[in-house]
């Protein structure tokens, strides 16, 4: 097992270097310009833009910029944002709590709701609950989040005025009132994202459970007189969870990536929002760093998922 982990980690290093190179190359070759913001402003003439370009180091060839960026990354220095002149690390640190509070909570909510919903749907197949859950689940992943998001804003934000639709990242939870406010302002984005997560996970769990329920080992378990609850929880669920674990583990990095559309709609200043505005601003250090951290997380959670297999399924042994 230890050797397996070590081997995987060693493979991860060249993988990440290649990824980082590809990210940087794409960004460097893409037609994005950090100075395009000055666009048609006659007060920032072309010569000034050229000078700013130089001060940002953009006059150097991109392979050199790549090497500089990589070496400073290894030292833990993510560079300085072109737009805000503040360190990229600080920007990410400011955004991460919002992302975790909304996207993270929605994810946990999705997992906690999705598994039981999927289980009940499978056990009580074709019941009213199953039909209802299936309908909601289909809606959940076929209706895009920008649509549900706007719908919720119009109904609950504008018509009913129950919830604010401008997320305030400066809210500090220190008493009941501020806690209630935090819940009120997160409820709409969490619902939008949660619905999607519940839908995906519930459908997965349901189909896995249905595959396992008619198998021989389940009949055996029932035959030897085990309580139905134990049959389902200890045998069927455990076996059905193996692919679900992969799904959940591989989904964790996407939490970090944020929910670009939902964050934008509800003005949640999360990582996704940072990424998308940085792309449109051509803020290359921020884009490269966020995407690279994302890549690191994907590689890490892939490894974790593989390791979890072994825990869940004793037949799997890594050497």
């Amino acid at each position, binding site marked *: 097992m230890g050797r397996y982990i070590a081997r995987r980690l060693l493979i991860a290093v060249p993988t990440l270097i290649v990824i980082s190179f590809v990210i940087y190359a794409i960004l460097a070759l893409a037609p994005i310009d950090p100075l395009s913001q000055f666009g*048609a402003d*006659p007060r920032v003439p*072309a010569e*000034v*833009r050229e000078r700013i370009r130089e001060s940002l180091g953009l006059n150097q060839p991109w392979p050199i910029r790549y090497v500089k960026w990589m070496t400073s990354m290894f030292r833990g220095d993510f560079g300085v944002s072109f737009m805000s002149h503040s360190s990229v690390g600080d920007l990410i640190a*400011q955004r991460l709590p919002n992302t975790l509070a909304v996207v993270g909570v929605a994810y946990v909510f999705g997992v906690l709701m999705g598994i039981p919903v999927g289980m009940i749907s499978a056990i009580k197949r074709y019941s009213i609950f199953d039909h209802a859950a299936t309908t909601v689940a289909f809606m959940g992943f076929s209706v895009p989040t920008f649509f549900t998001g706007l719908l919720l804003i119009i109904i609950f934000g*504008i018509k009913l005025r129950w919830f604010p*639709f*401008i997320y305030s990242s400066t809210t500090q939870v220190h008493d009941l009132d501020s806690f209630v406010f935090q819940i009120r302002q997160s409820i709409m984005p969490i619902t939008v994202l949660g619905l999607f997560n519940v839908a995906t996970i519930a459908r997965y769990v349901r189909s896995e459970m249905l595959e396992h329920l008619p198998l021989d080992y389940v009949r055996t378990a029932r035959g030897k007189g085990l309580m139905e609850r134990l049959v389902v929880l200890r045998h069927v669920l455990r076996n059905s969870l193996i692919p679900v674990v992969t799904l959940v583990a591989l989904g964790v990095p996407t939490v970090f990536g944020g929910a670009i559309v939902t964050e934008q709609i509800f003005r949640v*200043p999360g990582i996704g929002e940072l990424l998308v505005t940085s792309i449109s601003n051509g803020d290359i250090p921020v884009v490269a760093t966020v995407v690279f951290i994302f890549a690191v997380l994907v590689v890490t959670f892939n490894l974790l998922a593989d390791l979890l297999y072994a825990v869940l399924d004793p037949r799997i042994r890594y050497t």
Partner: protein
Amino acid sequence: MESSYVRRGFALAVTATMALAACTQQPAASPAPSASATPVAQRGAGGELKILYWQAPTILNAHQATGTKDNDASRLVLEPLASWDKNGQALANGLAAEIPTVANGGVAKDFTSVTWKLRTGVKWSDGTPFTADDVVGTYTYMCDEKTAASTVDVCEGVKSVTAKDPNTAVVTYSPAQPFYFQWGVGFNTPIIQKAQYANCLGVKAKDCPADLKPIGTGPYKVNTFKPGDVVQYDLNENFRDPNKPFFKTVTLKGGGDAASAARAVFQTGDVDYAWNLQVEASVLKPMAASSTTGRLLTSYASSVERLLVNFSNPDASLGDKRGEPDTKHPFFTDIHVRRALAMATDRASVASQLYGDGLTGKATCNILTAPTAMESKNSDSFDICKFDLNAANKELDDAGWAKGSDNVRAKGGQKLKILYQTTVNSVRQSTQAIMKSNWEKVGFQVELKSVPASTFFTNTSPDGANHFWADVEMFTNSGDPNPTGYFRGWTCKTATGKANNWNGSNYNRYCNPDFDKVVDQMAVEADQAKLAQLAIQANDILIKDVVIIPLINRVAPTPDGVSKALKGIDVSGWDSVMYNIADWSK
């Protein structure tokens, strides 16, 4: 061929301008009213002022701003010597005690220097005194090329800024600068604290913590700033006017989209001020009209959505010579083709259908729309400013451009095929559709192209406005209260091309020595009335020669939504919308 038409157009323009000038009253350069004209409010009596920008500020030092959002967010804290009011006049609501004029001796008769008398007793928000040294420090910081300030343009021709005494700063220009308020007035010259920026000069400016929390003399000071998200300001206890500002705190939240920002100000009243509501007029108009909470702010300046006609040849087969200033466009060199294009341009429909007829913009046939005294009245009578498809058809028939079986006109094997480019933007795509349908009626074949704004407004992309590798392109631009620099963007010298890495501002590659002469005269003209005449002349040349086809005078700075309860807002199209935020109250 071309030059004779150009000259004829020029001669006509000159005569027309002279006639007009004779009966136009020219306003004298007047000293602006003092800032204390607004009613006395009680300091801090208001609670929180909520401002919503759908583009979030990323930096609070206006000298490093990458957009209006940064300039505006910075203006609550950092002030210039004076502001620009809505008439394009300097207003002494900043650090200057009065507006210098030739009459009060502040401006040298030969326009080589301006002596600014500063307010006495002004303190920075950290309690230290503000002096002329800070003004000099700001000059040192922003005008050092290594600082790479986005405001460095106003440093051009500034020889020095010196402190005569702690309350007097002298700006010296070389050569003489008739636009003597170039340095010191408006959002390009906010005064920063010399002490705070002592370690941020030159190359060190790139990574300067002060940019995120500048110390200022303005009515508010920064409490918390999260770049790309939100700025929270507190009242500045050291602000010079003991009765101001009215609000205890200000929150400037960024992000999201314009449509929901409009809802927040017009429907729920969640915010007091929502910036730049670029929403289609059909949505915005009823929303604003039926609102009980908010109203729409509309003010106009020199922001004009225009069509540019290419004078160079954008044909890809030219290779290295593609679109170079020394090439000739295959058919736009014929003024009749340009005139027909202008006459087939239906700006009125664009104004009513897409800009809500005055909601976010109004039709115009001038490229210079402000200051008012400099706006040409002549264009109303120009035939090319009237939408007339028959006249356009006749113009082309007479010039020998015959319609083929495909309804596209051609002459000598050259078809009138137009590639028309602009940015990706729903209003612009709708404008393109209106243009295309009319132009095709008179025998042009029109291909539409839209490019993301971030690619379009660059000198690096072949799809960009600077390269202009198309026949017609469309975007918005605007000028300063003194339009000399604006018009310089159509002179021969500024033609964009390979030689200047597509950094020239003359994207049309228009070159007309007669026009250049007018601009050269403008550059040395100190008399406001004469300057206005020259500006009108320059405008008329560009219009009659169909170098540009102006479409819409857009609301400037931006169409903003504001709470009905909010008082004291007096938007100026020449300055940041926050220029008088000290006077805002409820």
